[in-house]
């Protein structure tokens, strides 16, 4: 769907690329996917949009993943936000990220940010701590499916 218009300009493509480190091609692909998920051409994704992905529904951690796209309880995620979350999954680039350029914000795919992302999957109530209860809940979720 919409393959004709897939070359439509991505808003702020350059700044997104700089922030996330995705290549032009990946970004295009992601944008394409983003619009495929975006049912009503709203320009953003809602939880419903993501929940419609079939495979995600059976994934025990699916709802946690979906939740991670909506920081701070917001109801929608736009394309930069979408890409930003996915940028956590790019491979770690350099070992010596710490040494270079302390002013620059840490890239999203640094080890620390990856960890932070994983952490917030467990942190159900977003209080910055994983409580015993949360840990149990996530583990159990996973376990139910096994």
């Amino acid at each position: 769907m919409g393959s004709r218009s897939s070359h439509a300009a991505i808003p702020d493509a350059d700044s997104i690329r700089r922030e996330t480190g995705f290549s032009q091609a990946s970004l295009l692909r992601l944008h394409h996917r983003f619009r495929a998920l975006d049912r009503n051409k709203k320009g953003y994704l809602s939880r419903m949009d993501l929940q419609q992905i079939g495979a995600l529904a059976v994934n025990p951690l699916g709802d946690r993943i979906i939740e991670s796209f909506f920081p701070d309880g917001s109801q929608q995620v736009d394309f930069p936000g979408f890409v930003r979350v996915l940028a956590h999954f790019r491979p770690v680039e350099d070992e010596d990220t710490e040494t270079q350029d302390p002013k620059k914000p840490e890239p999203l795919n640094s080890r620390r940010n990856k960890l932070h992302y994983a952490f917030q999957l467990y942190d159900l109530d977003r209080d910055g701590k994983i409580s015993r209860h949360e840990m149990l809940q996530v583990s159990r979720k996973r376990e139910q499916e096994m």
Partner: protein
Amino acid sequence: EEPTQKPESPGEPPPGLELFRWQWHEVEAPYLVALWILVASLAKIVFHLSRKVTSLVPESCLLILLGLVLGGIVLAVAKKAEYQLEPGTFFLFLLPPIVLDSGYFMPSRLFFDNLGAILTYAVVGTLWNAFTTGAALWGLQQAGLVAPRVQAGLLDFLLFGSLISAVDPVAVLAVFEEVHVNETLFIIVFGESLLNDAVTVVLYKVCNSFVEMGSANVQATDYLKGVASLFVVSLGGAAVGLVFAFLLALTTRFTKRVRIIEPLLVFLLAYAAYLTAEMASLSAILAVTMCGLGCKKYVEANISHKSRTTVKYTMKTLASCAETVIFMLLGISAVDSSKWAWDSGLVLGTLIFILFFRALGVVLQTWVLNQFRLVPLDKIDQVVMSYGGLRGAVAFALVILLDRTKVPAKDYFVATTIVVVFFTVIVQGLTIKPLVKWLKVKRSEHHKPTLNQELHEHTFDHILAAVEDVVGHHGYHYWRDRWEQFDKKYLSQLLMRRSAYRIRDQIWDVYYRLNIRDAISFVDQGGHVLSSTGLTLPSMPSRNSVAETSVTNLLRESGSGACLDLQVIDTVRSGRDREDAVMHHLLCGGLYKPRRRYKASCSRHFISEDAQERQDKEVFQQNMKRRLESFKSTKHNICFTKSKPRPRKTGRRKKDGVANAEATNGKPGDLGFQDTAAVILTVESEEEEEESDSSETEKEDDEGIIFVARATSEVLQEGKVSGNLEVCPSPRIIPPSPTCAEKELPWKSGQGDLAVYVSSETTKIVPVDMQTGWNQSISSLESLASPPCNQAPILTCLPPHPQGAEEPQAPLHLPSDPRPSFAFPPSLAKAGRSRSESSADLPQQQELQPLMGHKDHTHLSPGTATSHWCIQFNRGSRL
């Protein structure tokens, strides 16, 4: 030894009866086989006598050298080389066990994670090696560096290249197992060596048929067919393996009642897979590898614990045996100089080329692969991979199989192959260890993943799969997730026993394993204490649990645990009481309860649990129970035990206990010993049924889980009780002292282990007031149905103590009546009861606790055999 004589052979009439006859030829073949294996095994033992030698020299080198020596001796004695590695033997008998072993125990997760790299090296790498080596040798010949005696064209060299290029699984396994490089590196080299078999087979066959046809007759379609056959052979082999894996898994699902053949099935079907693939000239190695890899998960879940161990050990034994024989025969075969013809140019050229092209191939492929790999393979890995490309017996067997009439240069090829194999196994095998050390290659760290690790690993798998879904990219994680869903939904349902499938719950599984390990260490400790300090046993439970887990420790310290020992001191006991208690604990912990001893064990088709094992199990259960008790008692201040006023002497306590119990909930709870005995029997008969259709593993697992389930129910019960009884003002103030005293005194532990047995038979709940009748009817049934040992206790118990039957109605009779001589049993019976009584809703517990008390009494009596009543009782039960 027992040689080959057969004293009586009735089929030989004419020369009269011979007393002694020598029939070497009848047994020659198997005898020689056995002898070779024996020699190889003895050699292994000798090598391992010296740690220094084996740490420096790989075993495969030593075996080859030994083979050389043996071959030399045979040659010197017989003047001709008698034995050698026959390709038929090698492919049909020696290779399958090694491949099965490696396939079955292949870490599947690691294998599939690196499948891309493995396949690349196996397919592209092998093709590359074969063609470049063959072509380069041909070039060498054209350049005039190979003597003109070697009559070979390009096709011959390609054929030779194809057989010499394949990395050999046997050699790789033998060397890498001693080197301990990290898992990724190992799985890549080893996986390559297994999977390249398909390529080797195809290349070898294609080249061979081309050589036989003559290069002039080869059509363009033949090349295409060659390429197509690569797919047919590899995919066909894998398919055969998977089909047999499926059959194997399915078969083991139904072996519940014939556990003894489970290991055999594994070997038979895997071997059938090998032979089938060989028959259809598919890749047999691939077939067995896939069979082992595919069936393991289901087979392991289906077969019993013992079968698992058997499979493991048999497989390892066979594989190591085969490997030993292969290397030794390789050495022996090399001695036979009639088969070889030496050409220095060819030999040196081959050696240099295989090393060079291997290294080049690895570097090139790794460069490509690293574009895609998350964790790239660095230079050191590449060095090890290049250097670890060992050639071995497969190449040798293939070269022996060549037809001399078609391949005139066969003798030269044989010699070259032998040199290459020896060089790679001996020189590279010897140097790879120092090399790995020198390069500081990441070593493997041997530890099992912790529970935490496993949990997170699975979590991350799910996360990655989910993200691939979101991105809409169908990558590796996506497919694995798909596969897992499919496996869970259909395959596991189909191939696993329902019980096994249930148990597969992973957290429980890990928890269970941890539990077992923990318990083993606990029992070890306990045993130690027991043996070293002899009779100072009563403190054993508490001491151990303090030492045991930090959790227990903490709870003990923070909670009411501090009072524990005080109470022990407070309680003034006569030496005699103390001794009794001590004795009780000693017996309770150490004695094996002779339950189910009537089970006949003369069947060939079942291995009955032997006594030792049952004993271990029971002791283990007891210990676990005791530990749980002590844990609980510190955690919750148990106040229901208030019903037994503590600073009292044993004798009085019994009465009071009963009275109290009666008072607290006016239930006719007192079941006499006879009752309980009868109850045991009913329970046991049930258990038998249970057992007959529930596997050992299931039982084990059940019990593992029950510890916990029980614990919670106890907690509930305790909570309820503390609410019910106003006797204790608050749970805090009634300190845990009673529990401590309890621990020291018999009943507690007795109660402990019964829970384990109760667990499976909760179905049988008989109202208390109907128990007499029930038990009587049951026991009369029992006496008909069950073996004599079983009924002995009832039959002998009932007569001497008739009023036992009435006891539910007149409970106070019991304490009053045989009391003076009857020291422990009543207290036991009541102890359990007084506890369970308080929870009126657990009748089965109620009927079983006295039961345990009764049992305890039977052990106890040998120790406290002061009363003749006890003795009588015992004698009765032993009848």
